[in-house]
């Protein structure tokens, strides 16, 4: 181990270290705490990873997996706790560069790659081997890259531009990059989310090789069957707390799920299930799927594979599922903001055609996007103008009536208790909860028949959360069909009359709100049903 550390110039060629017999932990994390404004993300987490071990990390959305990985990769710094790595006690990982220098690499989902550049330039980004005058040594660059590509089993020339590669091949380039850093600990963050089955088995082959060479591996995945296929041990995080570290051989998927669930529900007041047995469906979704080879630029690679459900007037339905299960994609497709391959959407029995946000809005669908700032708000514009945005494009008078707009906005400000000093204030300066209320007001103003809200309380403080929920109930009570997407499982359980669970672009099950437990939902969301 130490020999390799002394010569960082040598690429981490596999034979460096064989797995030593007992091999104490290569990484040892003790009592890590991390607090973000309003969130205690990690509460005394422990984690040991041995050399030559694949250590899986599982937990619900928001359990703290990403935060922990970001601390190891130098993106965040812990508030408390210590990290020992490769025999050095209490290392401070102050930056991403520092993590690289220590030998910790994180394989993101092709997030750290540069499309137009060659594979070699990607692998050695910013660290290209150079000659005496500082010029890049192309020959050495190519050769070293070729060696690394061989190790990860990628038979492609180093000069090929990255844009020519498939998702799996890009993943391999990421791994080659990690190897070039002489990494002794490699973190895989949901590596198979974008991969086909064949590509996944290639990846597992490479992970097996890395394992043999004594690299420690942290493997994060929502797919429990993968954990059982590839991992030696598994650690469970729940709500920022470390639950257990278990040998995979001695546990079952059901056992893991049971350890992952059970967060504090006290923040949410469970709503009384109202009697709404009658009523025709307001929203019907039939056979919704992605176009055969679309989902191109700007869209994630999750594929929708035939989604059917309906929501009655006054009903609140939650779409649950893990990240990458297709919840947001389904919402976008229903709203007409994502190309649709097949299926139809009906509101009150009438088909929406053509699929576009404008026709969805005309049919009475409202959508609150997941990312408020990126896709929802007009940040520089006033509260008033943000509230009236969706009304603008609909039929209405030719002339604007600013006085009327202002009084409407003032009305919402009072009713929804939006904390701002003036409705002419730019929304940029509002808090997250208040921004979300502005978004809700926009749709309340047009009185939607169907409202889809994607992560309505993300980044919203507890008090505002309850207020947002109350607004959703109020809408439902007035006959709107409400669809809630939430990564926060307790929230989904608390607000919904019915829960639809998505898994890999399909609905894997439906549970009525009264019977729902976190465990039931998580089983449907993370364990493949035997076919």
């Amino acid at each position, binding site marked *: 181990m130490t020999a390799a550390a002394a010569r960082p110039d040598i690429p981490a060629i596999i034979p460096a270290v064989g797995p030593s017999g007992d091999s104490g932990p290569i990484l040892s994390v003790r009592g890590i705490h991390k607090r973000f404004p309003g969130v205690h993300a990690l509460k005394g987490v422990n984690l040991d990873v041995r050399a030559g071990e694949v250590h899986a990390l599982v937990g619900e959305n928001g359990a703290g997996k990403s935060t922990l990985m970001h601390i190891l990769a130098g993106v965040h710094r812990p508030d408390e706790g210590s990290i020992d790595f490769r025999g050095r006690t209490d290392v401070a990982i102050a930056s991403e560069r520092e993590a690289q220098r220590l030998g910790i690499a994180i394989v993101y989902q092709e997030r750290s790659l540069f499309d137009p550049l060659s594979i070699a330039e990607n692998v050695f980004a910013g660290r290209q081997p150079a000659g005496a005058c500082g010029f890049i040594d192309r020959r050495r660059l190519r050769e070293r890259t070729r060696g690394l590509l061989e190790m990860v089993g990628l038979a492609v020339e180093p000069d090929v531009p990255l844009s020519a590669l498939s998702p799996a091949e890009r993943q391999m380039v990421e791994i080659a990059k990690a190897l070039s850093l002489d990494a002794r600990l490699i973190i895989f963050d949901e590596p198979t989310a974008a991969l086909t089955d064949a590509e996944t088995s290639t990846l597992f082959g490479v992970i097996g090789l890395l394992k043999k060479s004594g690299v420690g591996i942290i493997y994060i995945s929502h797919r429990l069957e993968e954990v059982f296929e590839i991992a030696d041990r598994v650690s469970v995080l729940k709500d920022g707390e470390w639950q257990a570290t278990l040998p995979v051989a001695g546990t079952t998927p059901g056992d893991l799920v049971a350890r992952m669930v059970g967060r504090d529900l006290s923040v949410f007041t469970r709503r009384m299930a109202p009697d709404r047995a009658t009523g025709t469906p307001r929203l019907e979704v039939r056979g919704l799927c992605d176009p055969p080879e679309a989902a191109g630029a700007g869209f994630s690679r999750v594929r929708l594979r035939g989604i059917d459900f309906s929501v009655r007037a006054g009903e609140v339905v939650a779409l649950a599922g893990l990240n990458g299960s297709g919840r947001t994609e389904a919402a976008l497709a229903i709203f007409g903001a994502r190309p649709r391959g097949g299926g139809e959407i009906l509101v009150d029995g009438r088909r929406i055609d053509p699929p576009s946000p404008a026709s969805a809005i005309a049919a009475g669908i409202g959508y609150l996007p997941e990312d408020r700032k990126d896709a929802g708000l007009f940040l520089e*514009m006033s509260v008033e103008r943000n509230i009236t945005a969706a009304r603008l494009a609909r039929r209405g008078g030719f002339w604007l009536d600013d006085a009327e707009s202002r009084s409407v906005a003032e009305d919402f400000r009072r009713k929804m208790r939006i904390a701002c000093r003036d409705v002419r204030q730019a929304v940029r300066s509002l808090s997250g909860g208040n921004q979300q209320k502005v978004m809700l007001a926009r749709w309340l103003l047009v009185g939607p028949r169907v409202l889809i809200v994607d992560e309505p309380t993300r980044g919203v403080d507890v008090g505002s959360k309850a207020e947002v929920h109350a607004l959703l109930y109020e809408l439902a009570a007035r006959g709107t069909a409400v669809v809630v997407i939430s990564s926060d499982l307790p929230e989904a359980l608390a607000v919904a009359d019915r829960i639809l669970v998505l898994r890999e672009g399909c609905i894997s099950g439906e549970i009525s709100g009264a019977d729902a437990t976190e465990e039931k939902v998580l089983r449907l969301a993370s364990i493949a049903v035997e076919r």
Partner: protein
Amino acid sequence: MTPRAPDSAGRRPRWTSLPREVVLGALIVLIVLLLWLAGLVYPQLSTFFTLGNLSAILRNLAFEGILATGMMLLLVAGVFDLSVGSMASLSGVVAGWLMKKAGWPVPLAVAGALGTAAFGGFLNGVIVAKVRVNALITTLGTMGVFSGIALLIGGPGITFLPESFSRLGQEEFLGIQAPVWLMAALAGTAGFLLWRTRFFRQYYYIGSNPKAAHLSGINVEGMQILAFTIAGTIAGLAGIVYASRIQTASSTVGVGAELQAITAVILGGASLTGGRGTIFGAMVGVFFMALMKNLLIILRTSSEWQGIILGAVLVLAVGADSIMNRRQER
């Protein structure tokens, strides 16, 4: 929910929180006042206030003022158009060619030229909004194309245009030439539409956040195509008016005019990132630039200095704005 301090950011209305066009407008008034005072001491400066000089300023700014109206619309929508200068040349030449060489009656020739300009703008719009080529690249390309076609049709220019046509640009009313009235009418109409109608208000949303605008049901692509079409037509109008005033359709009249228009519009409060600006601001920007140029001429500075000074003023104005905005956000 903790109530925010009611006046956390805006207790004192600082000058930095005023829109740029208001600051600039105040600056114009200040400069004119200073000029008047200075004129008492240096008689050379008082030539500024002669009727001849004032009417020359107006006459000269009409062309850019008309172009700036269309440019402001585009910048509000988050795009811009480098081809408006070439389009002005092209439409003047087309009008001249139609009435001199093809023998069309003047109204028809003008309509034909305006149609050409509208089509050119529409083309820009389709390439930017539908094909999704960046606006800089698209209009940089069409700038070359339009000016090339203008040269092909008109050579260096078409002279001695019919009397009935040149009257359009030379007529005076209340001692002010028709192009100035036209600019005022156009800016007034555009300003009012942008300020008061639902339809045109959509441009602020599109410029501010196109993704959110799309998700709010706004037809972003269609609206952008329309904006380019309008801006192209306005550029065509500017070219026709200019040709009429000098009774000559020159193929190079619009060279550099697009940059002048963008400079004026940005000085007047628009932002390259879109969603900001008013037609009033565009006019203030045009006036400010015309005033500076005129002053430099009166002070007998060489023309090289105009570029240096106007360029520096632009960077200073926008830079100061940017620094102040960042300070406020903190």
